[in-house]
């Protein structure tokens, strides 16, 4: 298993599902950011993903997965700003080269690409695990995805495990003291609040689980 192919259409579904999910959770993301940040994470992500969807709508047929990911990343860098713009932008920009030039990628390649993306986020933001950032959702997700595929799970099964890991990572940010991003200014006062970026990252992985495994067939 894990030999499903992910093509540009599948990636589109993923990104569109993420955009819908962000729009739906916009107020929640902003409310979380109000607690330990500056109350704009929902607006930021929604602005960015709305722009990404507009780009997708204008994408020509035959666009490769890599080109699509690059376009998504550049659009986020161009439209979001703040911390999440460069970070989410880097995630997709770094996924692109790992996707090569093919019209579709297999599950293993997708997992590697996602891993490369998350490494890019770490390189850009210098956050480590337990710094109370999106990394706390993204890194466990990549690990779960890779472990599942290695164990022979289907892409859908592996992505579901990844989504569960991202959710757990997101929840685990609650008791942490923030050491990166705006929440770090609060020191001990950041304890007891869920990180907004980890929350949106968990939505990203959930959107993958609900689209990528399914669309291609598990």
């Amino acid at each position, binding site marked *: 298993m894990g030999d499903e192919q992910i093509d540009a259409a599948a990636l589109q579904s993923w990104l569109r599902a993420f955009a819908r999910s962000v729009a739906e959770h916009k107020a929640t993301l*902003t409310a979380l950011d*109000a*607690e*330990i*940040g*500056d*109350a*704009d994470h929902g*607006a*930021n992500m929604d*602005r960015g993903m709305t722009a990404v969807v507009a780009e997708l709508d204008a994408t020509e047929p035959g666009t490769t997965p890599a080109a699509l990911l690059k376009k998504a990343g550049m659009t986020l*860098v*161009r*439209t*979001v*700003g*703040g*911390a*999440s*713009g*460069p*970070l989410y932008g880097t995630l997709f920009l770094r996924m692109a080269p790992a996707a090569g030039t093919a019209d579709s990628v297999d599950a293993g390649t997708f997992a590697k690409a996602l891993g490369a993306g998350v490494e890019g986020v770490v390189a*850009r*933001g210098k956050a480590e695990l337990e710094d109370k950032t999106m990394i706390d959702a993204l890194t466990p997700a990549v690990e779960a995805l890779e472990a599942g595929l290695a164990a022979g799970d289907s892409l859908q099964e592996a992505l579901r495990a990844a989504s569960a890991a991202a959710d757990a990572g997101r929840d685990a940010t609650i008791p942490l003291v923030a*050491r*990166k*991003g*705006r929440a*770090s*200014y*609060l*020191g001990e*006062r950041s304890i007891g609040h869920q990180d907004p970026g980890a929350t949106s990252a968990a939505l990203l992985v959930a959107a993958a689980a609900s689209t990528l495994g399914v669309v291609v067939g598990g």
Partner: protein
Amino acid sequence: MKKLVNDPADVVVESLRGVAKAHPQLLRVDLDNRIVYRADAPVRGKVGLLSGGGSGHEPLHSGFVGRGMLDAACAGEVFTSPVPDQMLEATRNLDGGVGVLHIVKNYTGDVMNFDMAAELAAEEAGLEVTSVVIDDDVAVQDSLYTAGRRGVGATLLVEKLAGAAAEEGRDLAGVADVARRVNANARSMGMALTSCTVPAKGSPTFDLPETEIEVGIGIHGEPGRRRVPVAPAREIAEMLVAPVLTDLDFTTGDGVLALVNGMGATPLLELYLMYGEVAALLEKAGVTVVRSLVGPFVTSLDMAGCSVTLLRLDDELVRLWDAPVVTPGLRWGA
């Protein structure tokens, strides 16, 4: 939420439109890219100064564009750093051929976006860019393992003093040097009587009861380090001045520039009263106020409250401070 706005999504660009109409002699505004240029940019042979950041801190940065200060400012969404494209575009257009200084407040978003812009400027456009990161807020513990200190009130001082150095014809290294020296010798501490309300959110970022104030706040509505009962101005001044004096180890005989800054919704009546208290505390500490500034300069939307910034001065900095400046927000000597 009651504000003088139309659609909250259009606040930044509509406000910049007003800036453009109000200052046709001083400024040129690129509304599409949300960049405010001094009218005569690029100035050939002069080091260019670019800053920018989230909106909601006006007059910072757009109000400090003009002769003797910034050559351009990029405006992001409210409390959200602008994007690399804006900074790259501005850097290109203001470059006078001898390099550009990016003045960046130390926030994760600002630093990353400016970094990407500087990379692009070097790679794609072959421009010479030096960045200076401002981090003067003593409310935040400085540490290698965190995002570090925030940039607040000192930003204005860096823009003025480095701007004057550039106007004098100093080269990029020299201008960057002044900027770093100012940052290294400046410290700030702020407090809030009320939260601010981000237009897109429509309700206050935090709830602060009538009986409490936040001490150690930043300029983005982020909660402060601690919440204390409402106190007289005299005690609030002490809460702000003491950590600043300690942190930079100001000592008897030091000459400083003292800035009492309003957070956006604090009347001048109160700011001057606070300045009186701050000046009295400095006198007691043997620190001499050589220059001062009172007013709303680095604000946080409609937050009520204030911050205190002290900059240790030397003769050169005094001279650069007194040099002519012609911007909407700061003007003298011309």
